């Protein structure tokens, strides 16, 4: 039993890096790794600018003929010129699906391994899975599945456009897999120090995914991303250190002073003043990674510059994995300081973030940035639910994490296809998506409809739950919830008008058609299914919310 538990807890964090190592080895064996860095720098430096211009021309209505011909020459004779390299993808791209499958399987098995509402742990308590862990693993696995299944089409398009060399392909897979491993480690770790290390590792790993093109915009986004997130998360580490200090002074042994269950159990013995300082820093620090004010500035830049599947992963799960850390700390803070402290802190941050996101959504002209600000809007709703803190609000927050992850992953992957087909991210230059690509347009539209909170998608249920819980709790939070709903309405209008402009209108004449839309359809179907009936997941959701309740 313990061996199986250890295996199930290790696999989600260990298999993705193993797959990454596999990709690295294959890259080396096939001699596709550049010899010496300067050489690669020179080749890539010279390549992107002309190609990018050609892509933009395509969007302007002039068919990018030179590229097409290249693609046709590259494809084997007899096959249709354009479609084949775009659709087929590299067979090795599909190996990336192994990790999400393993993560989902392990999460399902862990759910059955836990004896009713309890938890399992391995390596003397270093790794631990309770209902919340299982829930987050399921979300990570599901979103990763969508992202990894959309990756082959994305990479094939990049290859066809000449933006990617074989080495950049291998590097893409290596980094994405390591990213997944780090997120899973953050979820299964019971030690708050290891949790910090894993979340910081996600920043380091994704830096080169954000800056994968060496254009000015993407380098700028990568620089801001690393500097703001690293500095922000350093604050979270300072908070963790202060909490460790408080725990040691409360008489907890060194080995257990960063252990989450131990800290929760002995939270009443922590010094309130030190804990208050520590928790504020932690909320600020992990808030940076979750896209909350005041250290949110990296988010729209990074999300708009990263490749679409990576944006899907970052927006869909990275934000919520960071927020799950805040949820864990919130339990300690409430036991040590009473509920009011985190309530005021989180509600304030949530309302500020929501105001900012709604304001910037109103003036948005770039559809990937629009989706990024919508992520901030949804994260602030989750933060508001955490501030409310009743069982209903916590279940709604966790359901919102799942629903937002699925819908946003779909929306970002679809926006990547739109970017590839139209060559622009400007909302004003995209028209008639529904008329020209009915399936892609419908999927993008439905994903935005889900994000707007319409039934049958699960975000409807969770937003309703948050609102109900907010009005039921008390006067102060009732006002906060009312303000939040008003701001959500503003964001709703902005998002709906802009998406409608992109979807409607006459078709433009370009030859290519979108490919590999089934992962997006699956994501939306899962989101809708979750909204109609949680089924066996309902039980898990209640248990996960119970883990986070005030002890």
């Amino acid at each position, binding site marked *: 039993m313990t061996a199986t538990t250890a295996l199930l807890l290790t696999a989600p964090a260990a298999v993705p890096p193993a797959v990454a190592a596999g990709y690295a080895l294959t890259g080396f064996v096939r001699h596709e790794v550049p010899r010496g860095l300067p050489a690669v720098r020179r080749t890539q430096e010279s390549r992107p600018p002309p190609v990018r211009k050609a892509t933009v021309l395509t969007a302007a209505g002039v068919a990018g003929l030179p590229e097409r011909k290249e693609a046709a020459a590259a494809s084997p004779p007899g096959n249709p010129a354009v479609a084949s390299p775009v659709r087929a993808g590299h067979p090795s791209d599909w190996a990336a699906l192994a990790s999400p499958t393993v993560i989902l399987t392990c999460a399902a098995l862990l759910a059955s391994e836990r004896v009713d509402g309890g938890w399992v742990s391995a390596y003397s308590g270093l790794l631990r899975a309770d209902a919340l862990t299982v829930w987050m693993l399921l979300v990570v696995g599901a979103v990763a599945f969508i992202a990894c299944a959309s990756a082959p089409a994305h990479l094939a398009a990049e290859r066809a456009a000449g933006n990617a060399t074989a080495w950049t392909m291998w590097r893409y897979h290596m980094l994405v897999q390591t990213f997944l491993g780090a997120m899973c480690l953050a979820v299964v770790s019971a030690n708050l120090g290891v949790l910090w290390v894993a979340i910081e590792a996600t920043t380091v790993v994704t830096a080169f995914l954000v800056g994968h093109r060496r254009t000015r915009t993407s380098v*700028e986004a990568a*620089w801001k991303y690393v500097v703001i997130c690293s500095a922000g998360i350093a604050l979270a580490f300072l908070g963790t250190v202060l909490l460790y200090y408080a725990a040691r002074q409360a008489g907890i042994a060194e080995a257990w002073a960063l252990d989450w269950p131990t800290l929760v159990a002995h939270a009443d013995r922590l010094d309130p003043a030190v804990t208050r300082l520590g928790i504020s820093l932690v909320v600020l620090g992990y808030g940076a990674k979750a896209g909350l004010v005041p250290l949110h500035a990296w988010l729209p830049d990074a999300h708009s510059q990263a490749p679409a599947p990576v944006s899907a992963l970052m927006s869909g799960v990275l934000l919520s994995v960071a927020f799950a850390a805040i949820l864990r700390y919130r339990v300690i803070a409430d036991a040590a300081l009473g509920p009011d402290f985190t309530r005021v802190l989180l509600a304030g941050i949530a309302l500020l973030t929501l105001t900012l996101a709604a304001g910037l959504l109103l003036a948005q002209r770039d559809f990937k*940035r629009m989706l990024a600000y919508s992520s901030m809007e949804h994260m602030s709703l989750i933060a508001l639910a955490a501030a409310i803190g009743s069982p209903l609000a916590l279940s709604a927050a966790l359901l919102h994490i799942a629903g937002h992850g699925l819908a946003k992953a779909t929306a970002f992957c679809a926006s990547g296809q739109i970017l590839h087909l139209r060559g622009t991210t400007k909302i004003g230059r995209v028209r008639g998506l529904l008329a020209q690509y009915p399936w892609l347009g419908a999927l993008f539209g439905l994903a935005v409809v889900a994000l707007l909170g319409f039934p049958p998608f699960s975000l409807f249920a969770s937003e309703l739950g948050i609102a109900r819980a907010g009005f039921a709790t008390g006067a102060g939070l009732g006002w906060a919830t009312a303000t939040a709903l008003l701001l959500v309405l503003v964001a709703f209008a902005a998002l709906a008008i802009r998406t409608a402009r992109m979807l409607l209108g006459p078709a433009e004449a370009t030859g290519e058609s979108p490919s590999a839309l089934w992962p997006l359809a699956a994501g939306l179907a899962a989101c809708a299914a979750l909204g109609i009936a949680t089924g066996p997941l309902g039980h898990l959701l209640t248990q996960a919310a119970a883990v986070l309740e005030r002890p």
Partner: protein
Amino acid sequence: MSKGLFTQLLDLACGAFLLAAVVVLWRRELAAIVRLFALQGFALAAVALLLGLHEDRWDLIAVAAGIGALRAGLLPYLIRRALTAFVAERDGGPGRRGGSEEARETQPLVNVAASLLTAAALTLLAYAVARPLVELDPTPATRALPVGLAVVLIGFFVLVTRRRALAQVVGFLLLDNGITATAFLAASGVPLIVELGVSFDVLLAVLVLQLLTVRVREAFGTTDIDDLRELHD
């Protein structure tokens, strides 16, 4: 080691630690800033070493050696290498901005005199904020704890007001040194596994930032971060 000597040596090391951070604000040559950062790494290692000797803990002495190697050796070496690469590039490639300009923090957003005053204010703030921390367990080590927080704040200040990419990297590392010092002074350091993970992450972050600096230079022709204004709303 007697208690009095331990306290004096610890205060000396902490003083050097804080002074290095303040002098970073004073100097404009990036090479000098990196040297100061290395000096601060030594002071940090000395703090850890003194605590290890005082508590007779060999693992802490080993950690001190590791921290000294990383923060006074490897990290300054990496930054210095990037710096010399930029300056050397100037000689080979005409038409770009001068390398001497790359090697200096010519126009920080806040001038030197105001920066030094701010550092003083930040140190006072750190002492005010840290009062509950010291009161919880007043030992010689925790009494020096505000120094760690002051360096954290000064690191943030450098990060926000300095315009050269490498100066910002040093700012981030000052911030990190401050946190490590806080951890040592408050609780004799975090558990070994966390310390290892944190050091590894910091090393990787610096490697990533160094590579990004090269790319910023390639894309913008300068390492002045204020020129990064393509993305905004």
